């Protein structure tokens, strides 16, 4: 059964003219400007024999050359940087948090994006980090503490219970993942499982839009390449709402979201969303959509 799914998935990528296989992505760090400066981290890591190369389209991202684990060095413990893959640094860049704003990170653990949001806010304003799974709260707390974040509140509860109105909303949705983390990934996935994820993602995206103020921004992202979890989620949710519009991500890498897949036509402006195909981008697989909330509906339903 699993071989069937594996071939199904590979065939789907092939139809979209992509060949997806496991690839090693370099270790990428995000320099924590709440703790130090780019120059100091470059100098400091030189002493650990680590060379950093700036990633041009990221504000604080660098690829590293190191035979030692970047997570075992003193500068890591001091919170000078966070280990965060290239693509997963992009959603917060697109969200573009500003000091003083009120922002919600809906699925926060282990805190890579939460700490990135606080960093861009210069610790001014508030970021609300939701995480329902108790066993993931510890890593979230430790990373927030290590990264010197002082404007975060962690809520250990289901984000569907969240209340309030936010300037910006980040929904880095739980998804079926991709090959970057696991060589055996293809044989562990089923189309049914992917569709199950999509149902949850749709529910979360509706909630994200409800939590966003009029004129605010929702960024939706997954590390999945499956259209069901990406373009289809966006299409299904946005066609039910009159208070949203897709916006250009202004991101210089990646390709447009799919307009059509398996004879399913996706919503208007879907090409403004971004897909990061690992066979053409220096990243893992990823999908990002930027949604503007245009006007609030007075009543739900």
């Amino acid at each position: 059964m699993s071989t069937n799914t594996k071939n199904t998935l590979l065939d789907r990528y092939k139809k979209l003219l992509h060949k997806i296989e496991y690839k090693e992505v370099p270790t990428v760090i995000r320099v924590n400007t709440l703790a130090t400066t780019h120059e100091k981290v470059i100098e400091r890591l030189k002493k650990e024999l680590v060379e950093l190369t700036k990633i041009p389209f990221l504000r604080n991202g660098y690829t590293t050359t190191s035979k030692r684990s970047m997570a075992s060095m003193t500068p890591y413990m001091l919170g000078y940087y966070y280990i965060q893959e290239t693509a997963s640094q992009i959603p917060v860049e697109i969200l573009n948090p500003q000091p003083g704003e009120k922002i919600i990170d809906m699925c926060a653990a282990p805190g890579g994006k939460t700490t990135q949001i606080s960093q861009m806010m210069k610790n001014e304003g508030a970021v609300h980090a939701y995480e329902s799974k108790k066993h993931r709260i510890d890593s979230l707390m430790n990373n927030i503490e290590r990264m010197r974040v002082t404007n975060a509140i962690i809520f250990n509860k289901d984000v569907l219970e969240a209340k309030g109105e936010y300037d910006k909303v980040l929904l880095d949705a739980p998804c079926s993942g991709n090959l970057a983390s696991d060589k055996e990934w293809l044989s562990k996935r089923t189309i049914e499982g992917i569709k199950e994820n999509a149902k949850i993602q749709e529910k979360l995206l509706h909630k994200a839009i409800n939590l966003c103020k009029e004129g605010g921004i929702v960024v939706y992202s997954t590390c999945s390449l499956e259209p069901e979890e990406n373009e289809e989620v966006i299409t299904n949710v946005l066609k039910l709402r009159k208070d949203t519009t897709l916006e250009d991500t202004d991101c210089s890498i990646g390709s447009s979201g799919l307009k059509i897949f398996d004879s399913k036509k996706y919503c208007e402006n879907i090409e403004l969303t971004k897909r990061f195909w690992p066979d053409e981008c220096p990243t893992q697989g990823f999908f990002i959509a930027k949604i503007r909330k245009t006007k609030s509906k007075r009543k739900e339903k």
Partner: protein
Amino acid sequence: MNAKQQFLEICKLLGAKLQQDVSELIEVNGRLFSNMKEKNVYEGKCIGMKGRMFRPSILTLEQISEKTAQKVWLNAKGEFLFTCGRDAWKENITRKTAREQQLVIVLNQHEEPIGIGWYRNGKVENEYDIGDYLRRERRNR
């Protein structure tokens, strides 16, 4: 002792006077916070955690380090041992501004505070070190 008392204890033992209004500190599950408005699992600035002795956050460790004269500096070997939770030996110490039996802030060769220890018999006995950020997660996994 609760976390706040432990925090005051290490500040006193290190002779560090911090500009911190202690009355506004709130403890939640052994973690001490300032700027906490409502009782959440985590909010605002984490001062540190309750332990055998207080385990300061990196922000607090740096603040104490600026306010104390009781310090010991370690070489790279000593830094490695210490951040693995071990004691540092006499030969690992490159400089000290502390007397025997004092609690000290431990620094590496880059002037970065890496923990707290007891300076005893020429050695530094590990009381807390920032390698805990890595070990905590392994412990809790």
